[in-house]
């Protein structure tokens, strides 16, 4: 029978073109092709019937036409089917009922034949049509369920609102063949476009106000509704458990104006899925922010308590010493006087160091300090630090072992000075008086490793990493803000190096950090005649 179909592949049941159309596209019920099919099928039936007529009774020829009606009905809608029925009767009358080649009928009995033929054909075509429509409907349902499933499967994988919107837009656009836009509320509940199906979709003031209306009233607005129906887009609220989380705007293709009830119903399912996904993303975001806020809060509290302690302690000492000195009625001998003055000086210096650390950390973190790498000599910077520490190192003899052939290496000398200062101050603070410190450096594979070893108590097992965190300090007395090592780590990391601490087998701690020594500085030519002046 296939030769009767003008386009066989198009006409096969599994690939009914009506099913590949977007669901909202107009069903052109009386398409030309169906009418053509009627004519073709009836002509074919007539040809077969005329070929077989010498061998068959007229009643049998009717069967051929009935077969044609079934074929047409299985592929066309009501009117072409009816047309086929009538055309079949006409052709049968014209070609096979005497007198031949006229529509006149000799025997009145044929009228009964025609009537029966019409009724049978009509019933067959109706039944065939219904069966086909049911199959269509269930296929459509199946397809809708599948696309809904696709949507929810894709949505589940994402957490980001924008990505979710993009996915929903893509799916709705595909299924409904429309331009789609998703808007989410930002500051002051003003809607902004989160995703849209094409750049061509531009929302003017009027469109936006319809969307805003849908959002505020939690009801659909725009095209086909009674709220701002003048616009070209239908706006549906994305309603989740906590309220409206956004708006889906859907603008149908140009050849139809509104969505029918069934399509709306179906659209609703998509919108609900999207709403739930976006709400989930919102909630996840909120949780994340809440956590972050809590962390910041606790960090700020730790910082405030430790900073206020570290600023207040030296201030108290200074104020106390000064007030004693100012009280003339207290008899102070020269020694006590000097001691008070020294206290003032030491505590003021400590205050200065604390403030410097706090400032440095703040500036490092805010990015106000840029790493300014230049070719530097490690020996020189060590010299600066040892000189600057001066008398404070009297209690901790320092042994320096730097290889004589250490190259110039690129680093920021002010920042590295800070690293050395903090490491030394740390050692002075946490190791017993009189214990020596050893500073050494070595180079291998274009990496210079610097290490400062002490003979103090070391660090409790498992704390080796933690001590580089902000506001972490030893439980023993005399600690600073707990920023020194955090600053070291920030600086060394910014240089592309690593800093870590190990407990020494024999007791004591060793702090190591690395700096890249790759590359060669542009150096002046070696002078000729070294001894010549």
């Amino acid at each position, binding site marked *: 029978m296939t030769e009767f179909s003008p386009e066989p592949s198009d006409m096969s049941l599994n690939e009914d073109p009506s099913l590949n159309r977007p669901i909202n596209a107009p069903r052109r019920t009386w398409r030309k092709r169906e009418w053509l099919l009627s004519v073709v099928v009836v002509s074919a039936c007539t040809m077969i019937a005329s070929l077989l007529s010498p061998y068959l009774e007229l009643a049998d020829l009717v069967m051929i036409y009935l077969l044609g009606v079934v074929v047409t009905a299985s592929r066309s809608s009501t009117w072409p089917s009816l047309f086929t029925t009538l055309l079949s009767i006409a052709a049968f009358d014209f070609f096979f009922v005497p007198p031949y080649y006229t529509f006149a009928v000799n025997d009145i009995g044929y009228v009964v034949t025609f009537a029966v033929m019409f009724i049978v054909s009509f019933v067959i075509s109706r039944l065939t049509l219904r069966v086909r429509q049911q199959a269509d409907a269930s296929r459509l349902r199946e397809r809708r369920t599948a696309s809904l499933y696709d949507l929810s499967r894709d949505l589940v994988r994402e957490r980001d609102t924008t990505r979710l919107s993009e996915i929903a837009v893509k799916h709705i656009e595909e299924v409904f063949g429309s331009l789609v836009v998703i808007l989410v509320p930002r500051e002051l509940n003003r809607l902004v476009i989160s995703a849209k199906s094409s750049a061509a979709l531009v929302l003017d003031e009027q469109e936006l106000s319809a969307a805003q209306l849908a959002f505020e009233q939690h009801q659909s607005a725009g095209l086909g509704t009674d709220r701002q129906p003048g616009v070209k887009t239908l706006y549906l609220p994305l309603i989740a458990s906590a309220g409206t989380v956004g708006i889906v705007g859907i603008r149908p293709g140009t050849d139809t104006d509104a969505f029918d009830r069934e399509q709306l119903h179906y659209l609703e399912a998509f919108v609900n899925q999207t709403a739930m996904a976006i709400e989930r993303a919102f909630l996840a975001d909120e949780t994340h922010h809440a956590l972050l806020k809590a962390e910041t809060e606790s960090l700020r509290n730790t910082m405030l308590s430790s900073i206020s302690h570290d600023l207040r302690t030296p201030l108290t000492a200074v104020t106390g010493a000064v007030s004693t000195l100012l009280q003339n009625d207290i008899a102070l001998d020269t020694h006590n006087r000097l001691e008070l003055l020294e206290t003032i000086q030491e505590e*003021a210096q400590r205050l*200065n160091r604390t403030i*410097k650390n706090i*400032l440095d950390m703040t*500036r490092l973190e805010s990015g106000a300090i840029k790493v300014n790498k*230049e*070719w*530097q*000599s490690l*020996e*020189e*910077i*060590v*010299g*600066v630090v*040892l*000189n600057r520490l001066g008398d404070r190192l009297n209690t901790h003899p320092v042994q*320096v072992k*730097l290889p*004589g052939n250490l190259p*110039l290496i690129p680093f920021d*000398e*002010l920042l590295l*000075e800070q690293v050395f200062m903090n490491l030394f101050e740390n050692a002075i603070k946490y190791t017993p008086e009189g214990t020596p410190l050893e500073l050494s450096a070595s180079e291998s594979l274009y990496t210079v490793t610097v290490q400062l070893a002490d003979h103090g108590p070391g660090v409790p097992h498992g704390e080796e990493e933690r001590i580089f965190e902000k506001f972490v300090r030893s439980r023993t007395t005399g600690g600073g803000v707990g920023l020194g090592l955090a600053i070291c780590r920030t600086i060394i990391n910014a240089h592309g190096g690593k800093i870590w601490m190990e407990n020494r087998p024999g007791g004591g701690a060793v702090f190591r950090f690395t700096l890249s020594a790759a590359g060669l*500085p*542009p*150096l*002046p030519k070696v*002078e000729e*005649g*070294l*001894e*010549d*002046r």
Partner: protein
Amino acid sequence: MPKEKELILLIEDEPQMRRFLRITLQTQGYRLVEAANAQEGLLQATTRNPDVVLLDLGLPDLDGLEVTKRLREWTQTPIIVISAREQEQDKVKALDAGADDYLTKPFSAGELLARIRVALRHVARQIAGKQEPVFALHNLRVDLAQRQVFIDNTEVHLTPIEYKLLTVLIRHAGKVITHRQLLREVWGPAHGNEVQYLRVYMTQLRHKLENDPTRPRFLMNEPGIGYRLKYDPD
């Protein structure tokens, strides 16, 4: 008092800083003129003709670099800039623009007085118009006429550049010299940015002249700024 002591112009907007400096300087016998902002300071400089200017870099009305430039338009009076730690760049700019030295807050009275002494000494020597033929510091002795360098009376051989570097440092003894100034004086104006040259030669010089190069006693590095031959004449 045999002779009236030098006049110092203090340009500083913080009253408590002025109070501290006033007491410190007056107890040392210096005469003092105070100015609370740059305009007043510039005016005082022209009318009083001070021997040393102490200039705070964080003035409210004009930045310290500008004040330095305006002063240098007409006077060679030593300028010592006072700055907070965060102002490394400002410090270097002021020094390159002609300031003689700097102090970083907080500083001690000792440091302040030493800087002033060095500045005054340089002025005195410029007026006298001649340099001592022999420079001695710790165990270092440099015979500038004979171009000979001794450590503990043993002659040390320096390369021409090392020697030149040392003489420039001696000429500015006690004062800070920025990298740029030092590079220009030793290598010439085309080499103002090759700080790594300095690093290499200063290291060599330290190894030849200092007992312990990691704890220099006079060839001092001033991170981010330059070098200083540590020297206090008194």
